[in-house]
């Protein structure tokens, strides 16, 4: 190739080459271009990035510590909150709310700062939104690749397992799994691998078991998707050609099949993220989520919901935070799908 470069190029073609080079764009670049022009998707992406920054720098941003209990400030609220929620009348005006302006969104029933807890709570929701899809992606990819590529009885067996898992009521399976993890870890003896896992989980504030629990219940869709894609992609002539040239299975899978199935897979997982975040909120709501005092938006909503008549701010502010993040992930996922979905091409 080096020799070719030294040759003098014919003048006439260069102009055309330059034009082609300017206009040429890969499918992926094309998709990202379309994504960047989708306003809703961009807003979603910006909100997610902001959330990540808030989660990363939570200790710097949060005005107070998330577990700072202060009994003289219990259920306190700043003046502006008492105005937004008219039923929260301050004590001075014959109401029942202690006005505490140093708590920007108010304090919970233990006098902990709501704003700081919401800021730290972003960590839990985001961690679930980022790690869980990876787990279910890896599990689904493995099962789907094996089933689709090997075929035969193994394919049959794996797909029947997927069918059964699909028929299992997801929420109940998660509750059962979490109960086994959470309540089971107290009875473990030191030294066993399960004990090490439970220590690691405790060190992560209970997040590890949430990742595993949600991951176990949500890989089946990916497995089906991957299997279907493998079955169709491997019929292509280029796979046959690679096989004929003596390429090993691993190379065929990695070089020829994987790149073709990655797009739909990532889109499917992105669209599933709001669901995962919702699962975590649900688990925290029923008390099987992260370990207290680690704040989670779901747990905060659960704490605030029974007091919504007297102190609506305690449930509604974390609910708003959760809502905005899920909204953002939904917008981004939709945008990603529209950008990559070839059936939408040329129809706009």
């Amino acid at each position, binding site marked *: 190739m080096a020799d070719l470069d030294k040759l003098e190029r014919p003048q006439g073609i260069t102009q055309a080459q330059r034009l082609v080079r300017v206009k040429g764009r890969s499918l992926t670049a094309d998709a990202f271009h379309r994504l960047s022009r989708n306003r809703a998707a961009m807003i979603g992406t910006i909100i997610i990035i902001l959330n990540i920054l808030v989660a990363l720098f939570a200790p710097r941003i949060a005005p107070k510590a998330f577990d700072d209990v202060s009994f003289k400030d219990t259920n306190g609220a700043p003046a502006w909150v008492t105005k937004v*929620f008219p039923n929260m009348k301050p004590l001075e005006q014959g109401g029942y709310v202690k006005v505490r302006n140093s708590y920007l969104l108010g304090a919970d029933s233990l006098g902990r700062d709501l704003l700081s807890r919401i800021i730290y709570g972003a960590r839990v929701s985001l961690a679930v939104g980022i790690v869980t899809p990876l787990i279910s992606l890896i599990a689904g990819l493995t099962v789907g690749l094996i089933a689709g590529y090997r075929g035969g009885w193994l394919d049959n067996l794996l797909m029947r397992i997927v069918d059964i898992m699909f028929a299992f009521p997801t*929420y109940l399976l998660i*509750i059962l799994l979490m109960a086994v993890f959470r309540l089971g870890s107290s009875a473990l003896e030191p030294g066993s691998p399960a004990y090490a896992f439970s220590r690691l989980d405790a060190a992560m504030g209970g997040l590890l078991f949430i990742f595993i629990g949600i991951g176990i219940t949500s890989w089946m869709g990916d497995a089906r998707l991957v299997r279907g894609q493998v079955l169709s992609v491997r019929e292509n002539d280029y796979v046959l050609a690679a096989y004929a040239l003596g390429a090993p299975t691993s190379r065929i899978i990695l070089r020829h099949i994987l790149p073709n199935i990655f797009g739909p897979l990532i889109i499917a997982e992105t669209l599933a993220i709001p669901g995962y975040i919702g699962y975590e*909120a649900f688990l925290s*709501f029923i008390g099987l989520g992260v370990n207290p005092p680690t704040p989670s938006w779901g747990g905060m909503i659960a704490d605030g*919901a029974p007091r919504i*008549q007297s102190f*609506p701010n305690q449930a509604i502010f974390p609910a708003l935070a959760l809502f905005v993040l*899920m909204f953002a992930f939904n917008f981004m996922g939709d945008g990603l799908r529209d950008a990559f979905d070839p059936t939408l091409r040329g129809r706009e």
Partner: protein
Amino acid sequence: MARFILRRFLWMLVVLFAISLITFGLMRAIPGGPFTGEKRLPAETLAALNAKYHLDQPLYIQYLTFIRDIVIPRVTTGEQSNYLDHEYLINISLPLGDRATLRWMNFGPTYSTIGRTVSDIFRDNLPISMQLGFLAFTLSVVIGIPLGAISALRRNTLVDYSAMGLAVLGISVPVIILAPMLQYLFGVQLKWLPVSGWGKLQQVILPTFALGVANSALVARLTRASLLQVLSQDYIRTARAKGLSERMVVVRHALKNSLIPIVTVLGPTLAYLLCGTFIVETIFGIPGMGKFFVTSVTGRDYQVIMGTVLLLAMFLVIANAVVDIVYVVLDPRIRQE
């Protein structure tokens, strides 16, 4: 067709069996038992309680007994015993005299309340959940399908954008958020509707909305996507080419066919909704089935866990089977395969 339905039915039984086995395994893997609570019981009392509920037997016997009591129907005659072990969900009197009764599905007693059985829970609490679930389901269909259809027909117009924006909003507001917000807005601020409770018409509205909104948003998105897909098919072009009115094309050809993928989602959704939901029922204080899904697990109420999981699984499996059959009926292309 008959063979297809038979195969489907047999597979249903296999799935239910597998689910019961997984559930049994998982729930027995949770350490502690139903009677090892906060206050420790004397060893003899614990042993007596375990013996009373047959928890002292080997695990596989417990499992097989449980399955036997549910699956195998019995015919009893004479005076009915009041013993908790003989409480069946379905009792049909037979015209054979001597109070002959066909009894089926014995889900066993609950440990948390003395003198109550899982069948009692199904009789008392399930109907409430089913009423709420059915209302929410109706709401999601009534809102979702027209909204999605209008969006698809007015594609890329302001109507489409606002309807789909609304739908994304609906999907992003899970009940855990929507329920407290509705409570606050309509219950506390405007005082139009009661915050909680069950029985009066006004008490039904908020929980129905809380449960139905997210689903109607899902249905709307699905309807739109499916209808757009159908509208680009050749047979729609044919229908237009032969001069049918737009109305006929949409209603007779497009809408009917676009319902197929929607039915697939609606089946399991209905099953879930009918069996009750923990969050909505907790927040609105509705005495439905939902709370048992959680309290049974945290309290190791084994019979209730198995009963509720199997009930929901049964609903789900039946819904899926019905969807499959409806699919075959609706789409002649699948029938041929």
